[in-house]
């Protein structure tokens, strides 16, 4: 199909997002920064940053990574945050207001949300599952590597295959209502959640709510870090693994955690030459097996190195890497240059807790978990009664723990909402899963850091009751 980028026709495939179609067609610049008018390229590709905001058919601030291409659509760059007042060219239409009463509202259709939705439906509960994207699966969609774990935890399957399996079961389940391209923009007194979608303006009143809203990628300071071609590692995964578009020719990857190592391997699979992975610490961040997978194809991992600057005309053409000393200060004279058109940032994730925070959940800072996260009980309820959290938005861990946490939260919700014989079954299953997560799965020394973080933000029921007295929740669900 054909659409228009500032008047120029662009060929695209059905099912592509606007941002990906533009990138594949060679348009590196999607918008302009507000004061210095510097070009902005794509960055996170999952609707969490503002790099890809464009004017689509007259509507400004459209996240083009989340906007499917349509025949004949007109796309233009905007400068900074454009006034959200629609221009004359937009036809305004009144959306119907629809009220939905449901058992559980799930915000976010990634691994945690998917596993929770199915578990709740198995217990006969009605679920509304909301996601911003035009398909379910969250970041599972771009995981082409096989997962660890055990067979009953989807171990051995590739991430996108797990998503396919879930989506198949969810779309055929009459208890689960899926709202795609929909944003749960806020919760209101009385426990009502506003959901904006293209068909309707929904007001959802759930008895319980799960915020499984994921995470966003971190940025890193260096000269010209906003040049198109500096992309989040996850963003590049979306481009190549979800849409089959080669993100560049030669890459430098910054950060050797599992994300950096895995993306390097996937770049190699996509035919991109990976010049090096740089790591500021004196040790590889991710798991050995992921490092070995790229080392045996000759990708160097430069420890105690960071990126100093990138340069290029409208797009990254060169990156300068420098060694750092014990205090992480650059060592002058150790600069190395790489001719690359991609610099991928894999320097960690930050939980997206906006929804839970807006509800007034009491939070604590945890460096191990990537930032400020809501305090929660073992069964993942926050200080806002019946508001649960799971997955990366509850503190960065990984997809398998997100699946487990989603299930624990769902089982806890079920104990409250189903009749007593089924409730005791839910409780039994939940206790078993909590024990497995803490005593078996997280006993791995490789997960020690995340475990320490999760311990520091998990409180007992009694402590939670005290917190609720001290910081009365502004709203509650149920």
């Amino acid at each position, binding site marked *: 199909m054909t659409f228009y980028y500032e008047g120029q026709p662009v060929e695209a495939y059905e099912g592509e997002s606007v941002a990906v179609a533009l990138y594949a067609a060679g348009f590196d610049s999607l918008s302009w920064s507000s004061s210095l008018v510097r070009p902005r390229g794509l960055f996170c590709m999952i609707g969490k940053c503002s790099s890809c905001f464009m004017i689509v058919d007259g509507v400004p601030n459209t996240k083009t990574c989340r906007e499917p291409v349509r025949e004949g659509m007109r796309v233009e760059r905007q400068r900074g945050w454009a006034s959200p007042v629609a221009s004359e060219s937009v036809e305004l239409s009144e959306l119907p207001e629809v009220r939905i009463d449901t058992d559980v509202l799930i915000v976010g259709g990634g691994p945690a949300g998917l596993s929770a939705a199915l578990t709740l439906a198995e217990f006969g509960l009605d679920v509304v599952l909301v996601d911003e994207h035009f398909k379910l699966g969250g970041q599972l969609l771009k995981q082409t*590597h*096989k*997962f*660890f*774990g*055990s*067979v009953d935890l989807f*171990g*051995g*399957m*590739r991430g996108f295959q797990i998503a396919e399996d879930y989506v198949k079961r969810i779309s055929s389940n009459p208890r689960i209502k899926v709202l795609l391209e929909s944003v749960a923009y806020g919760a209101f007194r009385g426990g009502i959640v506003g959901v904006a979608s293209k068909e309707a303006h929904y007001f959802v009143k759930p008895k319980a709510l799960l915020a499984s809203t994921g995470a966003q990628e971190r940025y890193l300071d260096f000269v010209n870090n906003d040049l198109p071609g500096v992309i989040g590692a996850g963003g590049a995964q979306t481009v190549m693994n979800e849409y089959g578009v080669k993100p560049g020719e030669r890459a430098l990857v910054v950060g050797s955690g599992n994300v950096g190592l895995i993306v390097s391997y996937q770049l*190699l*699979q996509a035919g991109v030459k990976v010049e090096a992975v740089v790591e500021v610490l*004196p*040790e*590889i961040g991710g*798991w*050995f*097996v*992921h*490092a*070995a*997978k*790229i*080392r*045996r*194809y*000759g*990708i160097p*991992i430069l*420890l105690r190195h960071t990126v100093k600057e990138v340069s290029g005309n409208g797009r990254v053409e060169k990156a300068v890497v420098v060694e750092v000393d014990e205090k992480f200060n650059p060592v002058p004279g150790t600069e190395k240059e790489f001719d690359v058109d991609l610099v991928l940032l894999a320097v960690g994730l930050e939980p997206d807790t906006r929804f839970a925070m807006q509800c007034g959940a009491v939070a604590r800072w945890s460096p191990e978990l990537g930032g400020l996260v809501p305090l929660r009980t073992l069964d993942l309820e926050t200080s806002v009664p019946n508001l649960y959290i799971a997955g990366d938005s509850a503190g960065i861990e990984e997809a*398998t723990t997100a699946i487990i946490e989603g299930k624990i939260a769902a089982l806890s919700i079920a104990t409250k909402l189903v009749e007593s014989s089924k409730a005791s079954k839910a409780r039994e299953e939940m206790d078993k899963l909590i024990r497995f997560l803490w005593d*078996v*799965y997280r*006993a*791995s*020394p*490789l*997960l020690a850091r995340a475990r320490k973080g999760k311990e520091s933000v998990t409180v007992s029921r009694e402590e939670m009751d005290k917190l609720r007295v001290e910081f009365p929740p502004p709203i509650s669900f149920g």
Partner: protein
Amino acid sequence: MAAVQGFRKTGVVGLEDLSALGLLPPEWRLRKGPVVVLECPEMIPCNICVPYCPTKAITMERLIDLPKVNWDKCTGCGVCVAVCPGLAAFVVDLSKEDADYVTVPHEFLPAPKVGEEVVLLNKHGERVGKGVVTRVWERNKTYVVTVKTPKGLGMEVRAIWVER
């Protein structure tokens, strides 16, 4: 874990480390024919190789333990090479006079063909020679490729590269 283990700095695990962790097949077993080498030195929460091994040669007490191989039971069939999510399982055959044989996981296109000459890579990604593909099969998008390598390279070669 006290000091940082060497392989956590290099991404390369040496034979001494594997031997200390019980992951290196003993001499007598290497002489007998194809056998597995699991280069899985960290306590990953993973046990995928255990249920898939057709001869039940791999065992593990807890999900996070290192895999333990019963060297008598392993037939070198290569199923674990196909299913290991860490791409950490290999089969080596050092029992032949004239050549060694190594079986590696391979997830790149084009698919290698039997009889084809390919580049042999060691754990550092260095080209250590050329070898001939003797067997290829596929499972869930992972090719399991056996290559004939010059004698003495069986414990070195851990990847191949197809150059056409």
